[in-house]
């Protein structure tokens, strides 16, 4: 790993570890729709931060802004103090890796090859060395394979290395996505609904995997709908409702916040963002649909 941050189990210590990701005033508009509205978010090294919110709140859109898939209309995202260029491959190179809400593996490649693709930014050999096949090429390939196998062992997929990704069961596909993301040696891992569609046991296993990743010194930002998962896991939780950050704080703070409960249960009350500017709920939903279509393109 490039980042060798010592294990920092408590949020207080983590904060001392320094800021890893800083998003300032991120706004994302699709035509007339504002999917993400002026969101600030900070992730410190060694932290697990949760991002929750009702469907269509703009969580995935915000993720896409962070990873360069979208260029934010306004605002900046910086990683370790430098502003990130809005190109996905450069963001990954800088040290942010991600998984996708709807699994996006390279279906017709083997499990091992998927992870090797994740190593792309950390290896150098180009076309020429591939054709000439000097000793350097073999050395780099071997190192890549060893590292990939380590990651597969870490995620528990080592015995399936030669299988096609498409033939893995659902839960293992999720794990493989995480292994592939880890292969790029990130300092920050973004997980987009890592437990969607999982049974309680698998969710529990994913939880342990995320802790193990954090213990390796990688900060994690996770979107999830499973509240038990989020509150068990996260040092800090941010709540996004209709594109705006409603609350941010520890699990207790968020769990006890009336506005969060209202946002999820749909109870009307004064001071909710939807009431303030009168944006109908459907708008945010549409924005999210648009974002997913963009994603699929």
């Amino acid at each position, binding site marked *: 790993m490039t980042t060798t941050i010592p294990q920092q189990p408590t949020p207080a210590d983590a904060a001392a570890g320094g800021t890893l990701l800083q998003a300032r005033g991120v706004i994302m508009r699709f035509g007339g729709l504002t999917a993400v509205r002026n969101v600030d978010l900070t992730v410190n090294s060694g932290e697990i931060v949760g991002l929750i919110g009702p469907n269509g709140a703009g969580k995935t859109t915000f993720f896409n802004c962070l990873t360069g898939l979208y260029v934010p209309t306004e605002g900046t995202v910086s990683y370790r103090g430098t502003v990130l260029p809005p190109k996905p491959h450069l963001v990954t190179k800088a040290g942010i890796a991600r998984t996708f809400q709807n699994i996006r593996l390279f279906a017709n490649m083997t499990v091992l090859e998927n992870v090797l693709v994740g190593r792309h930014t950390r290896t150098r050999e180009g076309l020429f060395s591939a054709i000439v096949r000097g000793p350097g090429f073999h050395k780099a390939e071997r190192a890549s394979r060893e590292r990939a196998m380590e990651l597969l062992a870490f995620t528990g997929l080592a015995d399936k290395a*030669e299988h096609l990704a498409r033939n893995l069961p659902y839960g293992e596909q999720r794990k493989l996505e995480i292994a592939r993301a880890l292969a790029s040696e990130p300092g920050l891992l973004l997980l987009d609904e890592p437990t969607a569609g999982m049974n309680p046991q698998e969710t529990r296993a994913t939880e342990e995997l995320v802790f193990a990743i954090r213990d390796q010194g990688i900060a994690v930002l996770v979107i999830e709908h499973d509240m038990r998962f989020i509150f068990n896991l996260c040092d800090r939780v941010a709540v996004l409702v209709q594109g705006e950050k409603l609350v941010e704080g520890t699990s207790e703070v968020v769990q006890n916040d009336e506005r969060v409960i209202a946002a999820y249960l749909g109870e009307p009350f004064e001071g909710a963002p939807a009431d303030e500017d009168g944006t109908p709920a459907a708008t945010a939903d549409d924005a999210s649909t648009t974002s997913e279509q963009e994603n699929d393109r």
Partner: protein
Amino acid sequence: MTDLPIAAAEEAVAATATHGNRRTAPFIPLPLTAARATTLAGAVITIASTFMSWTYTTDFPGDLTVSGYPGGLQIMTLIGAILTGVVALGTFGLTGLRWLTPSRTNNGVLLLALATLGTTWYTVIDIAAKLGGLANLDPGGFVAFIGALVLFAGALALPLDRHPEEPADAEYYELGRAEGISAVVRGYAWLREARLHHSELRVPDARKLNRWLQRLVIVVVYALGLKILTFGLATDYSDIFIGYLIVLAVGVWGLSAGGLLKQFQQLTQHNKKFSSTVGVLTAIAYPFAQNNELWANLGASVLIVGTVALGLNIVVGLTGLLDLGYVAFLGVGAYTAALVSGSPFSIWSGTQFPFWAAALAGMGAACVFGVLIGAPTLRLRGDYLAIVTLGFGEIFRIIVRNLDGVSGPKVTNGPNGIAQIPDLSIFGYNLGDTHSVGSFTLGRFANYYLLMLVITIIVVLVFTRAADSRIGRSWIAIREDETAATAMGINGFRVKLVAFALGASLAGLAGTVFAHVTNSVVPDPYVFSGSVPPNSAFLLAAVVLGGMGTVSGPILGAALLYVIPQKLSFLSQYELFAFGIALILIMRFRPEGIIPNRRRQLEFHEDETPAPGNRPMGDDTVPATTAGA
């Protein structure tokens, strides 16, 4: 191979009889002994019939009037019937012939019987149709007709391995009945129900054989392949060639049903270096195996289009970019080579580059052209890219047409092209002259065939090595999911541009030889689609037909698409039509192409492979994961 363990295979057959909705059952209910007897009797009758006279006159191609020995199309029937009989005896348990069907299925017998039936009935019907009526048939013809039918019926009564597809929706059948096409619907349903299935049957591991025996088998198979190929090319009439194709295609299918092909793949996989060496030697032996300039020309042309198709395979098969103007890069290479060849029609008629320099110049020019076209177009995805490349391909041809000194600067001599390109001379060996090597003579086309073979080997090496590397994996990742690939840190545009430029360079390289083989370059062949082979549609069809992402697929596809129209002269007017039909059939029944990609094989055979490295493979694709060290 007789000492192979058969117990394992028998176990496998027993297991499949009950597994899922797979089952082993005949189409015609007959007692097993009766079915076997009918099959053998059919084989014997058919074999006997080929020694009789089939028609009265010698008007029919191949002279089938002679009694006493087979001739012309009778040879096809004879080969088919003997093969069916022998394989059948093997599946019936005759020691010494069991190795012919390692998986112990009867499906192979049925398919071989089908091959025999096909070629025999084709012959008989062709005689009747060509000469005007059944009156032209001798008794021998009728005997053959009946014999092949008996053989096929006997094979249908053997217990066959089947795996019916799930029946379609009940609604679908209802619709069929309502529309009054219920017979068609029922026929289709019957076909699904009847589906033969043998790809999952287990085959004893051929790698347990003695190492030297394995190598001997490889040599024999390659030599046999060369013999079969030259035999096919030597057929004088399209009628005989059609019979040959039927026996060859269905026969190979039948032998592979029994698992022989799978075992052979295990052998070549196990002796990789040895088998590729034998393969190259076989290819070198081709111009020596026959002494016909026409075939050598055919061989050289096939290698040229095959090599270009392989270059296209990098772009289409690996990276997933549909390029419809690819033939332009062949043209760039050819024109570059022509300009520096010393031809009197070239604007630089004084300069004559040595071949290596001309080849590098052709490659370089094509590469530059590839980057020029790629840089603006590769930002598009999917269909848009296809349309734009189609346009650029045409632009190349039109520009070349107009650089004639009238409509534009004089560079390419316009529609007249650059003629009188002199033959190449490499190390004092003039490729235009006839040389004798020992007792063999190598004509002009044989020389070019050998030169082209060297280039094909280079391109194959470049393809396999590039595919199995960091850059190759990123190509495949882009093909699979471009968004995810960029999110994994791949610079999509750059990687695609590299693929485009590499594909273009390889086509340019082949183009330099192409210019010299044809003696002249003109703009007309470099179109999107036409009846003369090197056009973009042809190359694309070769890649799709042969198998995307594989090495031998595009070469095989190009060979088939080039040779078959040459041998079947009556097809010339319907060539594009036949292309279309062939592609539709391939897409419906074998979408992965004739030679399936390793990944496809994994998809189908994954459950057979508990441990990595122990995988039976038809791996000629990209030795992606094993060849690291």
